[in-house]
């Protein structure tokens, strides 16, 4: 231990190198944009409509990933977000179908997300089960619940105010999905970077015990992160529902993994303590751009998945800090 402390007093050699690695996601983003711009720029990739399209299709992942950044920065993981999106979408659609006003439906949907977050938080912070296991179980449980509620039947949403607000509408020509994701990302950025809560999240993930000894109520902090995650998943569910004008039990399948990939690509540490929402936003856009570009290039789904998976691994490999496990 002492030897380490002494050794580290030697000058740090590779500082510029480390800083470069913090921006890997942005560099990859530019490279990918440039690549697609040159190769398929003529086939419609570079049109405003298509760029909006990318932002729209990634909105749900972005919203989930912003909250996931908090959870991961606090040293935890939430795998239940994917199935929670479908739960919230179904709750929302059913409340409206019952003839109740849409704001009530929105509140019910967010409420369902908070309940899931609350359960996750309880099992992780009070009972003390690792979040990977709790949320893995929760993911299964909620997906089962999604299927059970309507016996896998879709529920359509005819309320055009809701659909416009949450999915298919535009404001000054900008798709509402894009507005939602930018707004959530900015809010998340400010909260993580400039509030006491954000610092407490990072301290908890960086060294839970030291945070405790400094007066941070780390259980409460983690609990709050799960609540955020549940609420964000619910919002993402409503964005799906609004876009499709319907709610389905299979919304958000695999969204949890996409969101985690976006978070890690963005430069947040999988082990907690270091997180960046702007990176997450870029990570999410990067994944969306790759998928979109590959579709325009005419690759079929199997090829898309292989290429996208490979690019994610490469980007994370380039961003790895030297010596980090």
């Amino acid at each position, binding site marked *: 231990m002492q*030897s380490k402390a002494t050794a580290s007093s*030697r000058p740090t050699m590779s500082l510029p190198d480390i800083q470069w690695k913090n921006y890997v996601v942005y560099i990859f983003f530019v490279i990918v944009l440039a690549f697609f711009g040159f190769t398929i720029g003529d086939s419609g990739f570079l049109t405003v409509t298509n760029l909006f399209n990318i932002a729209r299709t990634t909105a749900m992942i972005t919203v989930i990933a912003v909250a996931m950044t908090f959870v991961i920065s606090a040293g935890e993981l939430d795998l239940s977000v994917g199935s929670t999106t479908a739960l919230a979408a179904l709750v929302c659609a059913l409340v409206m179908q019952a003839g109740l006003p849409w704001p009530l439906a929105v509140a019910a949907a967010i409420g369902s997300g908070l309940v899931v977050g609350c359960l996750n938080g309880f099992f992780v912070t009070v009972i003390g089960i690792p979040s990977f296991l709790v949320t893995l179980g929760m993911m299964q449980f909620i997906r089962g619940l999604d299927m059970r509620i309507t016996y896998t039947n879709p529920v359509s949403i005819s309320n055009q105010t809701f659909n416009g607000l949450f999915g298919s509408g535009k404001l000054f020509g900008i798709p509402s999905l894009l507005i939602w994701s930018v707004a959530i990302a900015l809010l998340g950025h400010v909260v993580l970077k400039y*509030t006491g*809560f954000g610092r407490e999240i990072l301290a908890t993930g960086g060294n839970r015990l*030291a*945070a405790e000894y400094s007066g941070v109520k780390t259980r409460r902090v983690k609990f709050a992160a799960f609540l955020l995650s549940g609420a964000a998943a619910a919002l993402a569910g409503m964005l799906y529902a609004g876009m499709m004008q319907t709610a389905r039990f299979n919304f958000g399948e695999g969204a949890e993994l996409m969101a985690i990939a976006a978070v890690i690509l963005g430069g947040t540490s999988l082990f907690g303590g270091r997180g960046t929402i702007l990176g997450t936003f870029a990570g999410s856009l990067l994944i969306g751009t790759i998928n979109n570009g590959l579709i325009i290039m005419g690759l079929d789904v199997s090829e898309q998945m292989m290429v996208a998976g490979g690019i994610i691994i490469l980007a994370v490999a380039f961003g790895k800090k030297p010596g980090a496990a």
Partner: protein
Amino acid sequence: MSSPDLLQMTDIRKSFGSIPVLKRVSFSLRRGEVHALMGGNGAGKSTLMKILTGVYSKDAGTIAIEGVPVDLHDTAAAERAGIAMIFQEFSLVPTLTVAQNIWLKREPRLPGTPFINNAEMVRRSRDLLRQLGVDIDPETPVGTLSVGYMQIVEIAKALSKNARILVMDEPTSSLSEAETEALFGLVAKLKASGISIVYISHRMAEILTICDRVTVMRDGEAVMTEPCAGLTVDHIVEAMLGAGNTASFEWHDRGERPAAAPVLQVRNLRLAARITDVSFEIRPGEIVGLAGLMGSGRTEIAETIFGRRMPVSGEVLFDGQPVRGQADAIARGIALVPEDRRKMGLVLDHSVRDNVLLPNLAQFTRHFLVQDGEALKTVTRTIRALSIKTDGPDKLARLLSGGNQQKIVLGKWLARDPRLLVLDEPTIGVDIGAKSEIVETVRAMADRGMAVLVISSELEELMAISDRILVLHGGRITQEMNRRNVASEEELHHAIQGHRIEPSDHVAA
């Protein structure tokens, strides 16, 4: 010089970038010698040992073993040359057994097969451990052993590789008193069997006890190499610090504190395991030392005062009111610098700034937002006040030396202007320079009215800083004495073992 030296390192030089870390350092080791290597953090002793063990390569100079030049270009080469570093618990796999750890990657095989000969491995391990005179079952998982035994397993592992030179880095820093004694016995045994040991430590007393020679390094140079016999602590400290300033580690009689209501009252405290009945008081401006053996319950008392533990019976009163939990303690001005700064004191991967701000976030938050500009002023002030050596507030705590890390932990609480500061082993792994600076800071704060409770295994430190010393033994305070009436470290040492000191009328030097 046709020397009997086993190891001769001559004119070793090493730079990192443009910064010279070792400037022509020479170091020698005789057969069967225990040679202490001392120096402040950054003096270059770790770098020198990393060159010896093949972790770093030297820029210039020669290394010879038994007069034959050797090339220690990597750790495997150093291992072949018979050089081994004894790490603390960290290089063992806790889930594997003692035997599995000792022979890891070198397991004996059943003849003619790729299968491990478990019985043989256990037998050889047992022989080794018997040779070292310890009774450890080779089939126990390492994770269940105490730190002292883990270190012995480390030594056994080194000997199994036929090591002739052992480098021990702060071997006693996490050992109990009894384990330390056992280790000293083991060192003597190794020495008698012709093994040479480089012994790195900050603890003067133990160096003078077990070492034959001492080499002191300062600023990348070996400034002194002398036989231990006839050396005094003062000699060594002076060599480490350079001519002059050792004053702050001497005791100053701060005089009687003005009578004031005690800020802390501990009454008939009983805690689950070891504390049966402890009572004491601290008045504003007073520095009280708490002496006791490792495991005597000192840390538990500190954590109870800080509100992290609840007493089984008895009470902790701050300003006459009971402390209700940690949040209450912090809000009312109690601060704790915990025992293990890396685990409990710091978020190592965060910056100096973030670490200093962590307990003070509420103070700098307006409308939910942390006012970073305002906060930075406090951080900068803290860095300056404690002379924390860092490139800037954004440097990661991990990259600072032990002493500077400890200053961050101290600084983050001092930024709150606490009324009671509890220090639990504040100078473990802290070099002498930083140590005096910490002592000086604490004294200055006490002069301004802060009450201080210092817990330490280093009696030298308690003797240097306390106005009053409490001795904890067998779950109670067995003695309470004015520092003036304690003549020497030995007296205090006897007291914590359970002997009574009669207040003497001579005044300590």
